[in-house]
């Protein structure tokens, strides 16, 4: 060996390929696609059994998919799903289940509406202000569950479900006692004081696409960068993948749980702001609900990955947008919900099975590759 080789031993070229990475991605995407397909098939069958025409339904959906107006609607509807899914995914990466996105988003929306309405600021400050208030409200609500888990060992699934219900009641009470606003028009739809126009999020495409889409994109990008590229994100994922190994390498589980719940709540608090700042400009009893749970479905279908979440969110948004036209064709619009539900269930089962199959295959293939490369390995007794 030359001196040079001793000092810089030649780096062995790895025999393997990027093929492995691509394959893994394909399996993941594939299982989600299969799940969606299964859902459509089952729903089609359900329609047929109940005397409706599945082909009419699917062709109507195809029509919807090619209609520009409907495409904008798809994006509009997808945005809160995507945001909510990101909130859930953050904690999911840690192995926690934040079912409380629903309550956190309500808290965010409510307090943003209430506090934002009593503040006077120029638009360039007011909009961020409202956003910040919403996210802080959501973060604080999420922190309660985080604290309970870290300090008292309370399982976050139960505590967040409880907090959802509590949030509903508390907000209802606060609204009715303190924050109903009589705007003098004698309207029956009583709401909170309306946000001044400086807090309204303008549309990008009039009445079709709200500027909040920028916020959503930023959040998705931030999710990717923080969770998949930063050291904190690495530690977060490590704690979810193998809590014991993470602990052994010095990562503090308690800190992770608290931070994850805070950040998750922060994002959740933003979910309702699109509706608040872009549409209604105030909070009232006819506010949207259910984003928290749909978000969970979107996150699962998108496998907690930013691109997957966006795709899954768009799919769900599309299904929602197709509801109306379907109704006109005498297809119950609730078939959309059925499709969403079955998709969720299928992806959960199929992805589990697919992952296991893929793991087996990879291990076998790696062993074969190594034999071909002539390793001739004999192991010592363990």
């Amino acid at each position, binding site marked *: 060996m030359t001196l040079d080789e001793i000092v810089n031993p030649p780096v062995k070229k790895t025999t393997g390929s990027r093929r492995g990475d691509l394959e893994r991605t394909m399996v993941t995407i594939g299982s989600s696609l299969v799940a969606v397909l299964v859902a459509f098939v089952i729903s089609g069958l359900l329609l047929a059994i109940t005397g409706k025409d599945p082909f009419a339904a699917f062709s109507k959906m195809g029509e919807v998919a090619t209609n520009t107006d409907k495409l904008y609607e798809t994006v509009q509807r997808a945005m809160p799903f995507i945001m909510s899914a990101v909130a859930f995914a953050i904690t999911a990466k840690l192995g926690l289940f934040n079912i409380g996105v629903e309550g956190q988003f309500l808290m965010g929306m409510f307090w943003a509406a209430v506090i934002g309405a009593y503040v006077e600021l120029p638009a360039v400050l007011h909009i961020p202000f409202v956003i910040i208030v919403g996210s802080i409200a959501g973060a604080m609500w999420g922190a309660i569950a985080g604290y309970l888990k870290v300090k008292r060992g309370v399982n976050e699934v139960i505590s967040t479900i409880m907090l959802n*219900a509590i949030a509903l*009641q508390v907000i209802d009470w606060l609204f009715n006692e303190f924050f109903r606003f009589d705007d003098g028009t004698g309207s029956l739809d009583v709401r909170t004081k309306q946000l001044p126009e400086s807090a309204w999020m303008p549309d990008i495409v009039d009445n079709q696409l709200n500027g909040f889409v920028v916020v959503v994109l930023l959040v998705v990008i931030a999710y990717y960068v923080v969770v998949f590229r930063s050291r904190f994100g690495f530690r977060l994922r490590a704690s979810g993948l193998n809590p014991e190994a993470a602990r052994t390498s010095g990562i503090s589980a308690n800190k992770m749980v608290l931070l994850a719940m805070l950040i998750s709540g922060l994002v959740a608090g933003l979910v309702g702001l699109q509706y608040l700042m872009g549409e209604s400009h105030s909070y009232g009893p006819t506010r949207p609900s259910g984003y928290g*749970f*749909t978000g969970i479905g979107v996150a699962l279908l998108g496998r907690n990955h930013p691109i997957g979440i966006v795709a899954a969110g768009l799919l769900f948004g599309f299904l929602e947008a197709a509801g109306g036209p379907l109704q006109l064709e005498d297809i119950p619009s609730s078939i959309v919900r059925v499709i969403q539900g079955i998709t969720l*269930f299928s992806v959960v089962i199929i992805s589990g099975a697919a992952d296991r199959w893929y793991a087996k295959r990879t291990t076998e293939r790696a062993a074969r590759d190594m034999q071909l490369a002539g390793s001739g390995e004999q192991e010592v007794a363990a």
Partner: protein
Amino acid sequence: MSDTLIHTDPAPQPESKPTLLDRLPGSNNTILIAAFLFVLLAFVRTVTDADALTSSSTVGVAIRATIPIMLAGLAGLWAERAGVINIGIEGMMILGTWFGGWAAWQWGPWVGLIMAVVGGSIGGLVHAVAVVRFNVDHIISGVAINILAFGAMRFLSELAFVGEQGGGISQSPPQSSAIPRINLPFLAGGGDTTDILGNLEDRGWFLISDIAGVLGGFAHNLSWASVIALTLVPLTGWILWRTVFGLRVRSSGEAPGAAETLGVRIAPLRYAALSISGGLAGLGGGYLAIISSSFYREGQTASRGFIGLATMIFGNWNPIGVLGGASLFGFGEALNLVGPAALPKLFLYLAIVAGLVFVRSAMRRRWVPAAVQGTLGVACLVVFLTVDKIPEPLTKSVPFVLTLVVLASATQRLRMPAHDGKPFRSGEDH
């Protein structure tokens, strides 16, 4: 070899020494305490003239409010005793409300109840397949079932109820007939006899009228369905603790690995337990649609599935505990409906109870708990003195807040089945 015999003390009892209370509640202590608490309630009732606290109408409504929650709690119990977390109880209850409402409208209330059970069981089986066969995470499967059930019911309603009289996408037409109610003869004036209990209750006498009121709640207007539902509590206890099947189901939740080494097959047990769990949840839903009201309505369950889970937790995974917890919530719900003015008076009761516990803590020199209890007692007293009406949303949040409080303070003392929620693959070593 051991040259010196080292005397080791037997292992000091852990803080959470499971007493008989954990397994066979009804020991002398509990009965005495319960009796005392009741007398105290009667006293408060007499003093504040809040008849609703112990009236038969309150108790009657309380029974109807308790049963769905109790059934949900039992559903959770069956699942978790077998080692599977069932978050999907809410969804299974929803299935029960829909199938119950639909079948009751088509064929009558009894068929309605049966179909409700069937509907719920299907949900339970789906959960079982996902969790046992495909090893899906328990929580995720449960959440998925909830979402699926919610969406599917609306779809089914569109198919079955739209266009029918009284029906629509969010409710079913009313049931064709109702399940008969009992009025006990003599005690409650059934069959045109004198209503002894009712008379006693009206007198307003301390303790006697209260007892008459409570008993009256059971004797008047009691639905057969309620009777059946209530028997499920001791039945569950008997099956789980006194039969071979029950022992093995529980082993599935405590130490499935050990059970397998003894030849017990875990998968079939879990399938069975989850079907039962779903069936109970379905029955709870059916009860809501058929007894508590007379038709299916969307949102009827109102998170009772989750409240049921809560009662299971602070009932310590025990059927009597579930009943106790459920009746607590049922009583609160009933009081809110029947006599909301009586609610603030309840705070006097709470203040006294807090005071007594405060004294006990102080006597044991446990200052921090004493301080907490004392503050709570004073707060309750203040509420009693100053507030006339408790806002409904706040009373509605009580079950949830209470659950959090109990979980936060007693997590160490609760004994959940040891292998609850943990993934288990057949053949895995312990």
